[in-house]
């Protein structure tokens, strides 16, 4: 039985329907990647799981429990943490405070403490007392990931963590993923960088205009299949 499942997940922004019934499954220990063009609904998908967007009560199941009616704050406490698109660190807080705030919703036991996060991203320890906005893009992304980890999530949702970053920085960040997985966290990655997504994931889902257009193991998918699914031909 999957750790995290979505069943016929629909999502609306007011009158506008962003997701049309998405079925996905994440097994414990897995890493899945969500790819798709802009506006395909990838971010909305993560937000729906995290509880920031209205969705049907039984459309998201965590450990077989329907969590669609739960608030975002509750969902973090259950063990699902979102690294939001654009990092969105708290500007009034310094780096360390940002990380500590991440632990506000910590209910589960786990390995992620301040020290553990600092050992994952040493640069953050160097900059611990700096105001969050003064960090570079890559460092902010690391801080955002660290912040999400502080709640000891069983599932980590990452929304476009490579956005706007130089390739070498992206590589640095992705280098941390294996350690995160090793600590027992399952990961859902929304990525524009298809190559990167394919490299690290066990399964890929492609979204196209709010619908699933493709799913499969990276090794088994051809370039053509991905292209068609991505652009919707």
């Amino acid at each position, binding site marked *: 039985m999957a750790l995290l499942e979505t069943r016929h997940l629909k999502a609306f922004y007011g009158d506008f329907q962003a997701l049309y019934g998405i079925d996905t499954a994440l097994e414990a220990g897995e890493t899945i990647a969500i790819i798709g063009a802009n506006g395909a609904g990838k971010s909305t998908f993560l937000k729906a799981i995290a509880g*920031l967007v209205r969705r049907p009560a039984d459309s998201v199941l965590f450990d077989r429990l329907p969590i669609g009616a739960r608030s975002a*704050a509750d969902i*973090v406490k259950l063990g699902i*943490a979102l690294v939001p698109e654009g990092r*969105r660190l*708290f500007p*009034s*807080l310094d780096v360390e405070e940002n990380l500590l*705030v991440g632990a506000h*919703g910590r209910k589960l036991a786990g390995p992620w403490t301040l020290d553990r996060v600092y050992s994952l991203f040493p640069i953050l320890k160097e900059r611990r007392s700096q105001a969050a906005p003064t960090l570079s893009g890559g460092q902010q992304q690391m801080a955002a990931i660290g912040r999400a980890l502080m709640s000891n999530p069983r599932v980590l949702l990452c929304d476009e963590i490579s956005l706007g970053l130089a390739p070498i920085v992206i590589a640095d960040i992705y280098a941390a993923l294996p350690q995160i997985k090793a600590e027992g966290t399952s990961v859902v990655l929304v990525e524009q960088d298809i190559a990167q997504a394919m490299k690290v994931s066990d399964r890929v889902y492609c979204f196209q205009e709010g619908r699933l257009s493709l799913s499969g193991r990276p090794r088994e998918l051809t370039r053509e299949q991905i292209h068609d699914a991505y652009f919707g031909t």
Partner: protein
Amino acid sequence: MTGALDAVIQGILLGGLYALFAAGLSLIFGVMRLVNLAHGDLIVLAAFIILVLAGKLGLDPFMAVLVAAPILFAIGFALQHVLLNRTLGRDLLPPLLVTFGLSIIIQNGLLQLFSADSERLRSGAIETASIALGGGIAIGVVPLLTLLSAVAVIVILNLIFYRTALGRAFRATSDDLEVAQLMGIDHNRIFATAMGLAFVVIAIAALYLGLRSNFDPTIGPARLLYAFEAVIVGGLGSFWGTLAGGIVLGLAQTIGARIDPEWQILSGHLVFLIVLAIRPRGLFPRALD
């Protein structure tokens, strides 16, 4: 010369009272961007609560405020949770109009309960006690306590905001409500807690309001304006700024009163408008908005 020095001292002491008025307003705006138009009336309400407790329980007001504080915390918590949380959102109008309606209700409710008669908190000898500073200048003990309490309140608020997990939650929620939820912060409870805390500050402000001068159900709106002016002059986002703003206002009013007693309040308003015209962000702004 003594006259001028005396005016300055009295002005600073008065500023302590205004800083107390303003601290609660500043706290609420800092956490949830809510400007509570009923703020002044709530101070008056708190003063009446202290009055009743002092009377019924035979307590000195300084003791009565200790009893009143948790009661007021609960009222503030409930008010935010039940009513004001529902008004918060992108639209400016609901919180403004709901708190305006609240202001009218509180004023008239108090009028019904207590009539328009002036009241005063009585504390015995301390009311008239003063400390001689030499040179013919004396400081009233109550005004001095007011200023010291204002400083203490601001120190404690700063401690809470910058040294505790609760304060981190306050600042995070104020920065980005959506992402704060992703941290497991229940913003409804956080706002309610902040409001409860503000109500405790309001209780302290009410104590000194009632000790220093007479109060009746109608004086709320004027206190709101002073509190507001102190916050703006001091600069948004800084509690020490609020203290500075209160003192500037106190000085303006006191000096104006020395020129002509009828000009006291007007002087305060004019200084406020001047500061607004020259330095719209206030004297010591911190907030990013």
